[in-house]
């Protein structure tokens, strides 16, 4: 992949995650939630991951953290392969997660300080009570919470404050890498901006690396260095953020980006929207070859035969499509 001068922190190689879905009484069928996805994330950068609902974005994030056991594929962290349970345990101190729903991701029976301190308790990362408390208060001030909120319960806070608690929890073990699983999609737009900016500030202060999963393309553009587009469990395009917005190459990315609302009505009228026909196929019966061929206006027989390779067409710009040259 893109071997820049930056060092890769996370390397994902041919990651697959199939869920067994039972059909009928005794038979089960694999649901290919993530199918043969490879990418790297460099130290200190943010990789945005976009795609429509059900395309496997969240599964990539969770499988990456070994919350789901990968069906096959390798995950390398800082040059080391994560394989044994001991590796995973060490990895959990380096890689954490911020969740989508700030309401269900905080235990209603725990105080804020217990929620934030839980990862510290699990890894026994303090000598005494005082040290634990100091660390929790430090984390709370990092994310802009008052120290007097520590003894309160999560239900007493607004959505934005709850998400800050979730972020403080993710920061507790002093990680290098955070998977942000749609961390702002449950928030109001005004709060979204605050939280997004906070992610940016924390990245600068603490030198964090993010995998930022989202379906809001403008948010992703704002925060990401590079962006990956997924469709039906496959990665179809990966490029620098500016590059993918200005010159999307894959027909799916083109259609996805044409759907981004533009605030200026004159510009919006001038833009041509590419409307796809049909619905996204069920991942249980994914089409042969390129998963997008059933809705692609440029599909040919070749697309039905085999999955197009994910290849670099210009520097750092990867696309999985046979027809790239013809379309563009």
């Amino acid at each position, binding site marked *: 992949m893109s071997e820049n001068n930056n060092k890769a922190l996370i390397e994902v190689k041919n990651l697959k995650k199939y869920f067994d879905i039972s059909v009928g009484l005794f038979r089960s069928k694999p649901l290919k939630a993530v199918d043969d996805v490879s990418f790297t994330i460099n130290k200190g950068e943010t990789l945005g991951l976009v795609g429509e609902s059900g395309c496997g974005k969240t599964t990539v994030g*969770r499988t990456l*953290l070994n*919350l789901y056991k990968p069906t096959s594929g390798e995950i390398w962290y800082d040059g080391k392969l994560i394989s044994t349970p001991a590796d995973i*345990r060490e990895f*959990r*101190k380096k890689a*954490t*997660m911020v*969740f*989508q*729903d700030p309401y*269900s*991701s*905080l*235990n*209603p*029976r*725990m105080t804020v300080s217990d929620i934030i301190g*839980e*990862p510290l308790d*699990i*890894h026994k990362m303090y000598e005494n009570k005082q040290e634990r408390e100091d660390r929790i208060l430090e984390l709370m001030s990092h994310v802009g919470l008052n120290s007097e909120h520590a*003894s*309160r*319960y999560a239900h*007493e806070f607004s959505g934005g404050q709850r998400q800050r608690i*979730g972020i403080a*929890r993710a920061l*507790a*073990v002093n990680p290098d890498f955070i998977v942000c699983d749609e961390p702002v999609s449950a928030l109001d737009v005004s709060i979204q901006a605050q939280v997004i900016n906070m992610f940016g500030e924390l990245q600068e202060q603490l030198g964090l690396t993010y995998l930022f999963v989202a379906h809001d393309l403008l948010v992703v553009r704002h925060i990401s260095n590079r962006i990956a587009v997924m469709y039906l469990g496959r990665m179809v395009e990966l490029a620098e953020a500016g590059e993918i917005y200005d010159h999307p190459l894959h027909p799916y990315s083109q259609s996805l980006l044409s759907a981004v609302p533009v605030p200026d009505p004159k510009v919006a009228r001038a833009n041509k929207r590419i409307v796809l026909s049909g619905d996204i196929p069920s991942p249980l019966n994914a089409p042969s070859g390129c998963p997008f061929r059933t809705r692609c206006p440029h599909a040919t027989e070749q697309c039905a035969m085999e999955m197009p390779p994910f290849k670099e067409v210009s520097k750092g710009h990867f696309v999985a499509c046979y027809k790239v040259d013809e379309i563009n």
Partner: protein
Amino acid sequence: MNKKPLSLHVDVDKFIPATEQDKEYMVQMRPPSTFFKDGVKRLLKNKVATVSFFIIVIIALSSIFIPMFWPYSYETQLGVVPGKPVDSSYNNLKPFEYGETELARIEAGEKVFPHVFGTDSSGRDYFIRVVYGTRISLAVGFFASIIVLIVGMTIGSIAGYCGGKIDLIIMRIVDIIYSLPDTLMVILLSAVLGTVIDKAIQGTILEKIGTNIISLFIVFALLYWVSMSRLIRGQILSLREQEYVLASRAAGAKGKWIITKHLIPNCISVVIISTALQIPSAIFTESYLSFLGLGVNAPMPSLGSLASDALNGLASYPSRLVIPAIVISLIVLSLNLFGDGLRDAFDPKLNG
């Protein structure tokens, strides 16, 4: 800014931006309160539940403390004095009547403690027997519920959390136990266990409690945990899909940590409520088993065995059946009402 006295212009001085302190002052948060405190507050507002709770407490305390100072004991036959013929005037006394020797002592100016509920057919003070019976019934109720709670919670949470094959096997066992007729099983088990336990407890303090009560506990532990474990399994099945459980796993937590820190605290209110409602049903079971002659060993009384003994002289001494029956009803009714109050106060689904 100077303002003319009659000017209708708005006074600009009133519109200074608020300082940080002013803003801080405007933010109102109620004092931190725990889930438990809120629940107790709601419970105290419920008059029926509060009254029931006090009735239970009074009954429980009196069953513990009255035997300490009561001058009669539950097993002494007042008419039987060593070296003298049996004085049958003490048998079957009506409330507040006295035996012959006692009457003689009253004549002599001595004070004699009254037999508040009279005596039974063997000349034993009936009041203290009722108190002891209450003690036994309450003890059986509480301990049986605790056994059910521990067994049911352990098995239920394991089944719910592990899922898959373990869940399948445990739930089929639960189904089998459910399909057995309860009463028949209780009678059979207490009969079979009786002989085994008899030998095991000889000479220990447990002997006084009696084989039947211990086998009753075992029967409870073996049979009645199923509904508790089903309840907890159902709760945990829905709770373990919550994102905070995933968050805990992402932080590196193992099964035991997740069950004890996240899952059980979140279903504890349901557990407390169903335990509170389990107690009266245990008391009821103990009573009818004692009534059938499978309860405590004589001379130890229980409310059920007192009622059973009273059947013989029902026409002449109806109070002997009525008193234990009233006590059983009072205990069971107030526990049920209190349990309902607990559910209203603590079940989060009812109060949003």
